[in-house]
Structure formats: C-alpha cells, structure tokens
C-alpha cells in the first residue's frame, strides 16, 4: 500500500468529481481496493453525490422569445432592474387591481339591485292596477270610483 489513508481520504472527493489525473487516480484506486476503511469513506462520499444526482431538476428552458426581448431591451437603452424587482411590484400591483375590480363589481351589484327592485315593485304591489288597461281604469274611475275600491278590497 503506497498511499496513506490520510492522502487517500483527501483525494476521494476530487476523484469522485472526476478531477484527478490518471497518475493520481491509479494509486488511489489501488489503495481503495486494499483498504476497507477508506472504501467505506468513499462509499459515504458517493452516497452524497447520489443525493444530488437524484435531485437534478428537469432541463431548464427559457420562455419563448426571451432572447429577442432581452436584446431589444438592451439595444433600446434599458439598464435593467435597478429598482425593486418586477416580481415584487407585479405581485404588489395585482392587489390594487383586484380590490378595484371588487369595488366596481360591488357598485354594479348595488345599482343593479336598485334597478331590479324598482322594476319589481310595481309588478308586485301594483299588480291590480297594472293588469287593468289604462283606458278601462280611466273609464271606470269616473262614474263609479267606489266600486273599484271595493273590487280591490274583494281580492
């Protein structure tokens, strides 16, 4: 065993990262074959690498038209986000919009309810009067107004 355990342990991470030259990797491999303790250490290092391998995200992709938009912005003299981010201002600007929309909807509902109430009232309370044709009402009212009142009362 030409390599010490101390040297071997120091090289294991670089070896697993593919950073060792063959001149360095060869003696390390030989050491690991002979030394169960260092082999165990290498196994632990490899287990961690497998965490990261298992956690790889799917390939990232820029949204369509991203590069053209950025190139257009820089060539039009835009110097980027120096102010607070668009992300937070976007999130912030959505709230007033929703509130305004809700307020507008509430006003509209209020107006509609008044309008509908106004339309419904005669249909409900003045049902008798509306059902009678105006010419008939006028005709009846003149000679015998009392009868109309009693007729209503009968209903």
């Amino acid at each position, binding site marked *: 065993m030409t390599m010490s355990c101390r040297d071997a342990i120091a090289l294991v991470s670089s070896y697993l990262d593919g950073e060792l030259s063959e001149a360095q990797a060869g003696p390390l491999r030989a050491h690991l074959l002979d030394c169960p303790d260092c082999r165990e250490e290498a196994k632990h290092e490899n287990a961690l690498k497998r965490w990261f391998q298992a956690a790889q995200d799917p*390939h990232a992709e820029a949204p369509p038209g991203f590069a053209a938009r950025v190139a257009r912005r820089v060539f039009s003299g835009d110097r980027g986000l120096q102010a607070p981010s668009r992300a937070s201002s976007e999130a912030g600007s959505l709230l007033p919009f929703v509130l305004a929309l809700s307020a507008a909807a509430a006003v509209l509902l209020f107006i509609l309810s008044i309008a509908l109430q106004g339309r419904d009232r005669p249909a409900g309370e003045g049902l008798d009067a509306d059902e009678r044709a105006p010419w008939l009402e006028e005709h009846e009212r003149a000679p015998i107004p009392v009868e109309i009142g009693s007729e209503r009362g009968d209903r």
Partner: protein
Amino acid sequence: MTLAMEPALKDDSRLVQETLAGSQLSYQKLVERHQDRVFGLVRHYTRSAVEVEDIVQDTFIKAYHKLGTFHNQGSFSTWLYRIAINTALDFLKRLGRSPVQAVEDPEDLGRRAVAERNVHAPSARLEREEVARITHRVLAELPEIFRTVLVLREFEDRSYQEMADCLGISIGTVESRLFRARARFKEALCRHHPEYGIDGKG
C-alpha cells in the same frame, strides 16, 4: 478545455465582437446560446419562476453593459455565470432574503472541522420531486458561499477550474470550500431528516 469546445468558444467570441460592433441580432443569438443554462443556474437561488426570469433578464442586461470588459479571457459561459450568481444574490438581498453568510472563514478552518455525519443514498422509493424538495431546502439554509459551490459542482457540472474562474478564487479554495460545503450539507440533511443519516465513526 477540450477541442470540441473550441468552436463554441469561437462562436461566443465572434458574437461578442459583433454585438460590440452594434448587432442586436448577434446579442440575441448569444443570449439564445446561454439562456437555458442560466435559467437552470438561477433557479437554485429562488424557486419562483417570475423571479428566475427577472434575474436572468437582469443578468443578460448587465452582461451586455459589461461586454467590453470580457476580452475573451476564459469562456463566455463562466464569465456569464459569475454575473448571474452576483445578480441572484443582489436580487435576494433587495427582497430582504439574503442568503446566510458564513460565520467563520471556511478557508481558515480548512479541513480540520470535519462533520462526523454521513448520509445514506436516497432510496429508490423516494420520488425525484421529494429528493429535490429536501435537497433544495437544505441547500437554501447553507451559507451562500457553500450553496454556490455545491450548485456549480453538483447541478451545473462545472470543473474545479471553471468554478475557480467563475468565483475568482484558487482551485485549492474551491476544494476546501466544497469539502466544507458537503460536510455542512450532510449535517443539515441529518438534522432535518435523521432517518437518512448514518452515525459517523464518532
């Protein structure tokens, strides 16, 4: 640097020169060549798709304004990564979500304070989404310098040299920072999920 990478570097270099000469289309092509990887990198700093897009957009706007300082030293991609990481960290700071700063100087501590914690590899039963959720939660609580080296190495598959170029540190510092980052990651993972931990030799 492999021979296969050279044409890509030449393409980047040509597009940079054309952009500096005033070609909007060349900058658009340069963005198209790198945008997916920058989106991939930045999502390790925030999981909000809107914020990721803002940061990536700001990265490319800053890159454009700094393009004159690129001078073809190293790869455009590494240069861009550095801007993207700084932009992401500035962005989080502005929103009051600054990543944790390392309390101690990790380089001074070197490899002495080794965490005696090890973890099991995730079992096959665990869904990828669950592993990703746990991993990102643990990464998010690590000091920024540790999170960044783990992201560059484990998710972006960057070599030590590329990481050193990107972060402006030596390869020795990359190794030492990675070593400590892994120890911190294992410690935090075991704290949140003791079921995945193996008691160390200690």
